[in-house]
């Protein structure tokens, strides 16, 4: 039996780096230290009905095809389209993302990631008002107050609290949990709220008002007896904890970005953190979902200057969220082909956007069956990044971590990067008249 230690978990943005995976005869026997989400991903390597061969839709359903044929079909689809959308990218390594961006530029398409439907509004706010942030290592060693706002790590990032915020002992937090205070702000009494010291139940859609209440009190003003469903005394006592801590953290989730107000909620929350720095050291980190959605924004910014929703149809990068982002492009019927890499928009986009995806030529690189593989015309299965392929991913605090390969992919499967390089080569051949 092979024992792999310090394996990086390719599931959520916490990107845990202490997994011990036991592999025997090509099967994962155990994934020690992993949470339920990470364990499910490692154990899924044992699935018997995994797709190995590319599948193309014909009149009688899907039939198998060769990788060469699949690559040529995708290349022709992208070259023939006036405005193709290249979407996904959050669950693959940075090296594959880089080739994908080159491909988008080559075919004059729009490239966008899951960020546009998770923390895109956070990026917009950060561009407006800045980003007072730190690394999770600093949080572990220094933070004595952690606020989770619109975020439920017990479900979405199960080891976040045990590794960084609620429980661990740190350099300046020697007693662990006893040295730390946790506040949860949410519309439901979540499982995370259950282990917090203080819970504020905000009424739905009123997060902006609650941030304003904190800022008003902080800056010497007065507020009504109740704001956003929360009594003034509870707001004031939570604010006192924020002002008097030594090192405060605001971890915010999609509860803020997906609710009314969207980027303005984050804009205001960042401004609260800035205001708190008049009293103490305070910082924030967005609770990024997929393990490398942060990496895609980094790579796209290096190559195009913008973090998501980049339109190359005019030959140069244009960025205008609301116009160059996937949900609008699909629901307005503005793209004429879709190429998905490592994502499931057919499950996670509103129905109106998926209706257009189902009508136009489409292809997907995806190791497992999903609603997107079901709707797309062509599916190329790939080796799984972070388990069968090494590569770089960025943690939610923008720290790059090298993911390790721990087992071989089934024969005949290529990595996302290799498939994208084949498609890019074929696109250039077609454009050169081959």
């Amino acid at each position, binding site marked *: 039996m092979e024992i792999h230690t310090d394996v990086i978990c390719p599931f959520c943005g916490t990107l845990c780096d202490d997994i011990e995976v036991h592999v025997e005869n090509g099967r994962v026997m155990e994934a020690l230290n992993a949470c339920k989400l990470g364990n499910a991903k490692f154990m899924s390597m044992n699935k018997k009905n995994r797709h190995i061969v590319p599948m193309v839709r014909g009149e009688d359903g899907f039939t198998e095809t060769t990788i060469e044929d699949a690559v040529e079909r995708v290349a022709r689809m992208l070259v023939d389209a006036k405005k193709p959308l290249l979407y996904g990218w959050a669950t693959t390594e940075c090296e594959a993302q880089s080739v994908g961006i080159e491909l988008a530029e080559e075919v004059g398409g729009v490239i966008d990631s899951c960020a546009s439907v998770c923390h895109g509004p956070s990026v917009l706010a950060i561009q407006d008002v800045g980003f007072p942030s730190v690394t999770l290592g600093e949080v572990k060693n220094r933070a004595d107050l952690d606020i989770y706002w619109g975020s439920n790590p017990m479900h*979405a990032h199960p080891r976040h609290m045990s590794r960084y915020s609620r429980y661990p002992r740190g350099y300046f937090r020697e007693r662990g949990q006893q040295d730390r205070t946790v506040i949860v702000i949410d519309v439901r*009494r979540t499982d995370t709220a259950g282990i917090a010291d203080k819970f504020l139940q905000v009424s739905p859609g009123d997060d902006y008002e609650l941030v304003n209440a904190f800022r008003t009190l902080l800056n010497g003003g007065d507020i009504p007896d109740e704001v956003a469903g929360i009594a003034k005394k509870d707001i004031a006592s939570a604010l006192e904890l924020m002002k008097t801590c030594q090192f405060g953290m605001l971890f915010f989730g999609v509860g803020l970005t997906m609710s009314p107000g969207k980027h303005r909620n984050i804009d205001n929350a960042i401004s609260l953190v800035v205001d708190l720095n008049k009293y103490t050291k305070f910082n924030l980190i967005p609770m990024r979902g997929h393990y490398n959605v942060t990496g895609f924004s980094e790579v796209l910014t290096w190559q195009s200057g913008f973090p998501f929703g980049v339109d190359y149809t005019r030959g140069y990068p244009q960025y205008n969220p609301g116009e160059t982002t996937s949900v609008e492009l699909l*629901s307005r019927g503005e793209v004429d082909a879709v190429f998905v890499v490592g994502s499931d928009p057919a499950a996670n986009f*509103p*129905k109106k956007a998926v209706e257009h995806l189902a009508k136009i030529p489409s292809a997907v690189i995806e190791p497992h069956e*999903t609603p997107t593989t079901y709707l797309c015309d062509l599916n190329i299965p790939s080796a799984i990044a972070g388990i069968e392929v090494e590569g770089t991913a960025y943690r939610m605090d923008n720290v790059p971590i090298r993911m390790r390969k721990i087992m071989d992919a089934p024969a005949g499967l290529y990595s996302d990067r290799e498939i994208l390089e084949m498609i890019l080569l074929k696109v250039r051949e077609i454009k050169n008249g081959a």
Partner: protein
Amino acid sequence: MNVTLITGRTIKQGMVIEHKDSTMYTDANAICEFDPDDMKKLKVSEGDTVEVSSEAGAVFVRAVKSLQSPHKNIIFIPMGPWANQITSPKTDSVGMPSFKGIPASVKLAKDKKVLTYPELLKQSFGK
């Protein structure tokens, strides 16, 4: 009953991401979590089919008693194809649809069937 719909990640939904071809996916995602008091008001029992409607459409899902209550007049459906039958593509010009805080209504639909995702996709998109 008029409610506010929240969609999002649950640990069960996250655990079946690599198993969307199994019945576990429908079991984890085609559900609606209710505050226990709201279930009494609606005379809904655990496992009953309910119809959830919004301006974008309607969907049939299975009622589940929320373990993260109280959240009166708020229902929760895990992110996925069932939830997105009733989310709007309007983004307020920032790229992000409102996946949370959606005005919706819910009613008991005991005799209706909760569709699997291939059935749901066939019905919605003809594929």
